[in-house]
């Protein structure tokens, strides 16, 4: 019977780099020697064994070879200078950092509540905190004025999100007023034009 030597080239992805090694019949026989018969009665054990023996063969390849792999040498090439992408510290997506200022922007009492409590009145570029002192003691307690003042202090730190929310709320309220003002002006103009027409 004719037998040919077959070299099996296997690809291996190691540390993000694609390397390769050749498997010769000698490797296969070594692998068989290392392998032990697996009892079927132990579920999952054959898979574990298979992985272990493959690792053993690969390791022995490295141990036996004193030369580094290169163009004419097969084997694993491990570049230790590459960053380790999969490690216990860096597995999967980085955790999302919770915005610690959310209590000021989206909670039961937040920047919206402050804006409404001071009716959007501004002083020196910030919401007018003195408006909070105009509430009766009962209303102040119901609105939790001390907490609103804490939120106001936060806004004075130059928080961009607070500034955006305040600006947006003012625009929402102002836009309707502008439309109403324009409508009133147009009505007045039409009446004036009508009066002029009637006068001729």
């Amino acid at each position, binding site marked *: 019977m004719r037998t040919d030597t077959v070299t099996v080239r296997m690809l291996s992805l190691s540390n993000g780099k694609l390397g390769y090694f050749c498997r010769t019949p000698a490797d296969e026989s070594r692998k068989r020697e290392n392998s032990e018969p697996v009892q079927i009665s132990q579920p999952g054990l054959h898979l574990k064994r298979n992985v272990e023996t493959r690792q053993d063969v690969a390791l022995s390849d490295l141990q036996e070879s004193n030369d580094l792999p290169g163009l004419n040498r097969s084997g694993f090439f491990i570049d230790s200078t590459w960053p380790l992408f999969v490690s216990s510290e860096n597995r999967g997506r980085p955790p999302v950092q919770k915005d610690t200022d959310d209590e000021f*922007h*989206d909670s*039961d009492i*937040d920047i*919206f*509540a402050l804006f*409404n*409590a001071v*009716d959007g009145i501004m002083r020196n570029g910030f919401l007018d905190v003195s408006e909070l002192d105009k*509430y009766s003691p009962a*209303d102040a307690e*119901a*609105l939790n004025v001390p907490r609103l003042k804490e939120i106001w202090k936060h806004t004075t730190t130059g928080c961009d999100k607070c500034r*955006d*929310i305040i600006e*947006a*709320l003012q625009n*929402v*309220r102002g836009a*309707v*007023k502008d439309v*109403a003002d324009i409508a009133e002006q147009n009505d007045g103009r039409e009446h004036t034009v009508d009066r002029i027409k009637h006068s001729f």
Partner: protein
Amino acid sequence: MKNQDQTSGDEGKISGISLKRKSEIVFTKWQTEKKNLPQIADELNLPIAEVQEILTKEQKLRFPLFT
């Protein structure tokens, strides 16, 4: 029979209407009528804290990009 979508004339009280409709009324009074919290609370005869809560919730609901 009183219209459920309107405030009652006798007491200025909104009763027997859904929270959704109540929220719309509060928001309209704030946005288009430019009423402040005490005014809305007085007109609707609601506790000021309730008006505050309804209004802020409605603002966030209508403008979710703010939060």
